[in-house]
């Protein structure tokens, strides 16, 4: 059992290598930026280890002017990181049945990158919190090392676009999205998510558009499922879970009507 556990940590770390490389490239730019903003290496280190969220850290250092607007910083970080509530929720199948201490420890090491890699791995044959944590540790080390080192070294800010590094995350995340595709049933929810995210990006502060698209798309899937259930035969409904039946029974007229329109 111990060997299996260890190999999953290792496999998780290995699966995140491409993302760790691009995180390091960005960490290098970010570290120089933070030094220019007067963020000390110790502050950088504390943010890396305790916060461990690149986009939130970027906004923090942009607000890093004395006297520090502590509450404003807290609010901004809350808005940007709201998506982690959903990311945490979506990891439920990975942590299902695991002891609480694993959840408490493992969830700190969740970044966009190892979350996406873990979810994709979970879909293609199951995985475990160890896989997630292995990737998280690799990312934490890569991110911390590159940001603190370049904070100390300083220098001119390079333009990552010149080497296409801004595209690295898009490239990897789009490939991972592709592997999350579960079939035609995902089409409408994904289109709704895409639309809400693109529109939300222009209208909402921070990174709230990610949460908006995620919730909107998943709720659409949820609604489609409920409509299907009300149209299903009574025999099928007996097999379904009690909460689903009570929801369907609560609004039969509304659901029946929209169900017909949907046809």
């Amino acid at each position, binding site marked *: 059992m111990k060997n299996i556990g260890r190999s999953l940590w290792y496999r998780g770390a290995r699966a995140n290598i*491409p993302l760790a490389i691009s995180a390091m490239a960005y960490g290098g730019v970010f570290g120089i930026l933070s030094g220019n903003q*007067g963020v000390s290496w*110790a*502050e950088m280190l504390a943010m890396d280890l305790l*916060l461990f969220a690149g986009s*939130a850290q970027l906004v923090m250092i942009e607000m890093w002017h*004395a*006297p*520090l607007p502590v509450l404003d*910083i807290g609010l901004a*970080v*809350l808005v940007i*990181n709201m998506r*982690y*509530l*959903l*990311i*945490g*929720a*979506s990891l*439920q199948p990975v942590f299902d049945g695991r002891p609480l201490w694993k*959840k408490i420890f493992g*969830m700190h090491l*969740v970044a966009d990158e190892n979350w996406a890699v873990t979810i994709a791995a979970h879909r293609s044959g199951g995985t475990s919190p160890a896989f997630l944590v292995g990737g998280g540790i690799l990312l934490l080390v890569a991110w911390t090392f590159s940001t603190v080192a370049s904070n100390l070294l300083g220098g001119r800010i390079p333009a990552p*676009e*010149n*080497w*296409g*590094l801004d*595209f*690295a995350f*898009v*490239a990897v*995340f*789009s*490939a991972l*999205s592709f592997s*999350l*595709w*579960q079939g035609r049933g*995902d089409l409408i*929810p994904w289109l*709704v*998510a*895409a639309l809400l*995210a*693109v529109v939300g990006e222009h209208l909402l502060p921070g990174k709230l*558009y990610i949460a*908006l*698209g*995620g919730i909107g*798309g*998943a*709720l659409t899937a*949820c*609604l489609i*499922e409920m409509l299907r*259930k009300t149209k299903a035969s009574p025999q099928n409904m007996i097999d*379904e879970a009690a*909460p689903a039946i009570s929801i369907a029974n609560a609004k039969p007229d509304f659901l029946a009507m929209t169900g017909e329109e949907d046809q």
Partner: protein
Amino acid sequence: MNELFHTGAVTAILLASGLTYALRLGGLLLADRLPKSGPGRRFLDCLPGTLLVSLTLPGALHAGLPGMLGLTACLLVYVRTRNLLATMAAGIVVVVLLRRLFMV
């Protein structure tokens, strides 16, 4: 120590970190309370895909035409190899080449 941490820096970092951690763990613990079947389950099943699309698409659109072509290259390489490093390399190479071509 005064030079290492500005006034209020420790409070700001702890506040931001505490909020972020609460969101991470809170999401997981809330999801544990959702029903294990029916529409609630469907919500959780669909959530990773819709979140990842929302995370990726706006950035991809900002990359313009080179980005769209780079994205196509990524998907082709990923379908053939299932290798993330190769996928990333393909996307970056295509985007950089196209940017150089259009810029110069």
